[in-house]
């Protein structure tokens, strides 16, 4: 994705499945792209942060906007993965309260520790 398609949104963090910086959606389900070959997903729809908002010139996806509004990052390296994971979390219905959000975001690490603002952004995107 990064080298052949030039989609540099998904980051290479740990290459171990632990940090979540490489998170993408495959048929709507979040996975860590570092642990998979594209060849294993023939015929499936892969969504990276680049495709999340639809039109690249258009508005941000609501979760992207919520991250901006709540200052949910510092260096931004983990952010594409955080946002992809958050979009899936909302679709799964796991945004009931802050504890639930924290547990279901446990596959995404943030070395800048923007966690409180990430939780706030997801809470807002969930409409609470």
């Amino acid at each position, binding site marked *: 994705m990064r080298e052949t398609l030039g989609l540099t949104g998904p980051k290479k963090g740990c290459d171990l*499945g632990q940090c979540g910086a490489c998170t993408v959606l495959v048929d709507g389900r979040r996975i860590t792209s*570092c*642990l998979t070959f594209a060849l294993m997903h023939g015929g499936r729809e892969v969504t990276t942060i680049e495709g999340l908002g639809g039109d690249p010139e258009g508005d941000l996806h609501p979760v992207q906007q919520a991250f901006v509004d709540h200052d949910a990052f510092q260096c931004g390296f983990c952010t594409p993965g955080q946002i992809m*994971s958050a979009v899936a979390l909302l679709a799964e219905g796991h945004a009931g309260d802050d504890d639930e959000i924290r*547990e279901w975001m*446990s*596959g995404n690490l943030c070395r800048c520790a923007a966690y409180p603002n990430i939780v706030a952004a997801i809470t807002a995107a969930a409409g609470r």
Partner: protein
Amino acid sequence: MEFLRPATWEEALAVKAQHPSAVPIAGGTDVMVDLNFDRHRPDALLDLNRIHELHTWQIADDDTVRLGASVPYSKIIDALPDRLPGLALGARTVGSPQIRNRGSVGGNLGGASPAGDAHPPLLASGATVEAASVRGTRLIPIDDFYLGVKRNALEPDELIRAIHIPSATGPQQFAKVGTRNAMVIAVCSFAVALHPRARDVRTGIGSAAPTPRRASEAEAFIRAELDDTGLWTSAGELPLSTAKRFGELVARAAAPIDDVRGSAAYRRHALAVMARRTLLWTWNDHRATGRAAA
């Protein structure tokens, strides 16, 4: 490195027979880590992702679940928590949501790590592994499946088609000790399943011996204790002293080592505590459901 992509199960078995050294890849959550870090570079990978039936499950007439080898943990948690409560509890502790969307029980069995979280519940449920090759199919009782650290009973030409797990007939529990709540490999783990119809109690110990294993002496003790005191019939309270003794016997069944994750002594202690607690939880659940049904 060759990347073999069979489209059907029959083709996969034929390819495995031709290339016995090809490494199967299902969710890839174990295989890819080895590849990314150049720990192991096989001459061929055998991709199982195109084989649809590995992602499905069926319920047999006797209520046994035939779980396709590649069904990811997240599906087990969402779709099978009532039939397979112990496995679903174990699955909930695996890695992270992203890992649970890919990782599978077939992959856990293929890797046969003593720390794999599917193993204790499979032991406690009395599961059977359906292994297949071009030579035919065999059913391997879970008690005979784990041979050593990361070694299992599969022949080089065999693949796991499914895992047969009896639907729960009583409460089941799983407990795991780790340094935090998510994304953690077990320091040690324990599963217990009550089988009220058979008046049996089965266990599974993880990460505290070269292989996952049952605590046979503890099982025999609690079986005799429940029979002798008529507790299955009376559904009375389980004495704390009995649960404690059960915990001690579970700890005795382990053969843990000191390693970076914990000492052998700590593992034994933690196992005794987990076994005592989970036995009491399951017994109290059993009493509550018995009363509700009466």
